[in-house]
């Protein structure tokens, strides 16, 4: 075999080994993300169906004022209950939602604005789609789950890149086995094609979903937000009125807002003796006057210096709004909308609404669903291929070769590690594990197919 052929074969083997182990390790989480992602794409359709009795009301006559509805809730649940948010119905046939904290339990109370009566309530922790979202975003495991999801997303991008390298036809291009599965060949070939063909079709969309999904992550997403903000190419660090707020509270601490507004510092209401807070009716009137999208929510001040926060993040990123109002005058203290984002910020905001399947309605949902189904096929067929040829006494992985012998793969790995620091951290852990443990224990060397001469 010629030298370049040997090098090429070694590179192929190394890439395959990385693809193999990364795929097996992250497959379970990837399956969870694909399934929950596919469900979450239809969150609004599912909730409309599940909560139809709570959402839909008959439009009949004049609507009661927001403050009367809040008083009614207070009368029903007791004065000790804290009102946390108010969401007017965005259409005439939609009930009003009032968020309460009832002995520490967060609930949503649905009110009929025409007769002021209670329609029903939901315990927020039991909302099915919120649970799905928690699984999708953090595997129901808080910060640890968030980091795992980020790690999996980063490694999935590596899988896409290594997968392309492995699959790329070395000979003549053929439609079958590349863009279409060979249905009439043997079972092994069919499973291989179920792994490869969907990947060819969805990989661009998958990488897009992974990158936009990672914007929510607590490490990489937070870093991107800070770097783009500080560089002045993403979101404004803050758009407030008057002096910079002294409060270190950021908007995500007081309200559920668009991703772009999460780190917006919260200004403070100017307190003075004997001033009376504005009414909820004034706040709702202000929201209408400011042209906030009808799906907005009002978050109540949490103390004397707190603010009313108007938050709207509807289907289209262009309609996002986060507005803080002085609780004693109703004056706008910060008005933060899509138009104020820098170009990269706008791209990220639209990326997020595309990720959630909202920006372009049903077509957006279908595209997202196709990617999720494709991902499921890729993961299941990949695992299947492995199980079909796995020896009973080892992992069945390709032979280990020292990665620094193939310089360009090392450069790519370092590049990924820099761009995704958590991936970089995991690479360091893998190297340490390999160096300190795997290569030193005989049965491990055999199980993981590490040859003595490669040490």
């Amino acid at each position: 075999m010629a030298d370049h052929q040997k090098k090429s074969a070694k590179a192929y083997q190394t890439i395959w080994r990385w693809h193999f182990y990364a795929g097996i390790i992250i497959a379970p989480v990837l399956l969870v993300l694909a399934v929950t992602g596919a469900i979450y794409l239809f969150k609004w359709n599912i909730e409309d169906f599940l909560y139809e009795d709570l959402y839909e009301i008959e439009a009949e006559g004049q609507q009661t004022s927001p403050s009367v509805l809040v008083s009614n809730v207070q009368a029903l649940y007791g004065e000790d209950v804290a009102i946390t948010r108010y969401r007017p119905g965005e259409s005439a046939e939609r009930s009003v939602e009032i968020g309460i904290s009832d002995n520490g339990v967060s609930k949503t109370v649905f009110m009929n604005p025409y007769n002021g009566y209670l329609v029903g309530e939901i315990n927020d922790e039991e909302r099915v789609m919120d649970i799905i979202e928690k699984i999708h975003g953090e595997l129901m495991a808080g910060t640890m789950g968030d980091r795992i999801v980020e790690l999996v997303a980063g490694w999935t991008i590596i899988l896409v890149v290594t997968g392309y390298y492995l699959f790329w036809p070395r000979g003549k291009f053929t439609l079958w086995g590349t863009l279409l599965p060979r249905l009439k060949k043997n079972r092994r070939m069919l499973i291989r094609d179920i792994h490869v063909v969907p990947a060819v079709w969805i990989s661009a969309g998958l990488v897009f979903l992974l990158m936009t999904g990672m914007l929510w992550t607590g490490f990489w997403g937070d870093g991107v937000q800070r770097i783009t903000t500080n560089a002045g190419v993403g979101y404004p660090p803050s758009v407030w009125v008057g002096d910079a707020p002294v409060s270190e509270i950021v908007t995500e601490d007081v309200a559920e807002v668009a991703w772009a507004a999460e780190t917006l510092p919260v200004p403070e209401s100017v307190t003075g003796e004997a001033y009376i807070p504005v009414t909820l009716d004034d706040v709702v009137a202000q929201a209408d006057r400011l042209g906030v999208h009808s799906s907005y929510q009002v978050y109540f001040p949490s103390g004397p210096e707190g603010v009313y926060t108007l938050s709207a993040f509807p289907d289209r990123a262009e309609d996002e709004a986060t507005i803080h109002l002085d609780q004693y005058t109703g004056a706008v203290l910060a008005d933060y909308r899509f138009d104020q984002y820098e170009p990269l910020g706008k791209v990220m905001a639209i990326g997020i609404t595309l990720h959630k399947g909202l920006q372009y309605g049903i077509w957006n949902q279908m595209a997202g669903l196709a990617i999720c189904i494709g991902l499921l096929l890729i993961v299941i067929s990949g695992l299947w291929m492995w199980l079909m040829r796995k020896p009973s006494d080892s992992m069945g992985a390709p032979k280990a070769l020292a990665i620094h012998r193939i310089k360009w793969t090392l450069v790519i790995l370092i590049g990924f590690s820099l761009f995704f620091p958590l991936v970089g951290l995991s690479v360091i852990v893998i190297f340490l594990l390999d160096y300190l443990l795997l290569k030193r224990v005989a049965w491990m060397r055999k199980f993981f197919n590490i040859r003595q001469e490669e040490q």
Partner: protein
Amino acid sequence: MKKVLTLILSMFLLSGCLLDTPDNVEDYHITERISVNIDAGDAGSGENAFQFYVQRGDEPLDDLDVAVEVIYRGESLTQEAEYVSPGLYQVPLTGLEDGLYEVRMSVEVDGQLITPAKYIGIGQLTAEEEALLEGNAAQSSGGHHH
């Protein structure tokens, strides 16, 4: 192996430094806060008046239509405030009885509806009115957190 580890680790740490860059708040457009001060003051003719000082940042605002609602023991009276001087508007207090007044102001500025309200005590207050005034003052100045 050690070289690879050192290289990855050092570049990894270097990437962390990118996160710590200076704040660029000044790059962005900042508009001025609209604020209102409500009080009872000397109207200049020996009479007192409810006075309203409206400003955008430090700039007093003129040519505003300032509507004022005065609520006294359940009775409500709404009237237009008169312009006095730059930023200053007032409603004369002629013939007012002693007691606690709830003064609500409404003005539209820059497309916003500004609606501050304040309790103002005139003359002798009842114990109940004193308590309401003091309770509200404590609450709005940070004495009570809920």
